[in-house]
């Protein structure tokens, strides 16, 4: 069974023009997009679960990247959204950097060990790869992002 990122995401999982002013606003807007995509049944519910996770420790992993995530009963199918925000946002990041690259991960409590979860784990690991991060940061279009995620 393949677990390539590209098997799970398409253009609708990529938001190149997010214009949030705060971390919470970014998460909320992305939660609404997940709801529109049919991945989440209740955006507000999911939003609160993500903020709860954020309150435990920051998901700002440094390098202007954050990976907010929520395990929530409102998640219909585990998935992720990639977003680039127009301005850097305060995120209590590990290295103090502000965030403009967001990988929002939505996890269904039922998807124990399934392929979607494996995809998220794989993506997380990739974020430690300097070349991957450099490519993601310099990409300007959703096609480019998809191409990088597929590689």
């Amino acid at each position: 069974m393949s677990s390539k990122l590209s098997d799970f995401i398409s253009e609708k999982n990529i938001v190149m023009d997010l214009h949030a002013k705060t971390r919470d606003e970014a998460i909320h807007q992305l939660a609404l997009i997940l709801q529109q995509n049919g991945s989440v049944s209740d955006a507000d519910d999911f939003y609160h679960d993500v903020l709860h996770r954020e309150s435990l420790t920051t998901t700002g992993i440094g390098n202007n990247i954050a990976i907010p995530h929520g395990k929530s009963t409102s998640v219909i199918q585990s998935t992720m959204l990639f977003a680039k925000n127009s301005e850097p946002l305060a995120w209590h990041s590990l290295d103090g950097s502000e965030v403009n690259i967001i990988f929002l991960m939505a996890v269904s409590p039922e998807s124990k060990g399934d392929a979607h979860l494996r995809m998220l784990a794989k993506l997380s690991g990739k974020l430690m790869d300097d070349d991957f991060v450099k490519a993601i940061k310099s990409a300007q279009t959703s096609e480019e992002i998809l191409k990088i995620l597929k590689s």
Partner: protein
Amino acid sequence: MAKKIVAVTACIAGIAHTYMAAENLKKFAKKEGYDIKVETQGAMGVENRLSQSEIDAADVVIFAVDTNVQEPDRFEGKKTLKVGTSEVVKDGKSAIDQAIALIN
């Protein structure tokens, strides 16, 4: 001979930090020329499980965890560095260096 490190990573949700910490430990251990094997205890269960002989042969153990290590008895008596996953995600080199400092 290259020093041998074994590590366990585990975070609360088991989705992201477990796997980021594992990759970062591997990345910096390789950079510095150490052997490493990392067991992940995440949402997909225990993966890349360390055998008792691998643990016994290791010079040092790293627990990069925000929660309890499963089956900790396996590591009894080993020199162990315990850190949080975020620390390892932020600075993998420092975690490796601290672990090696325990045995040098």
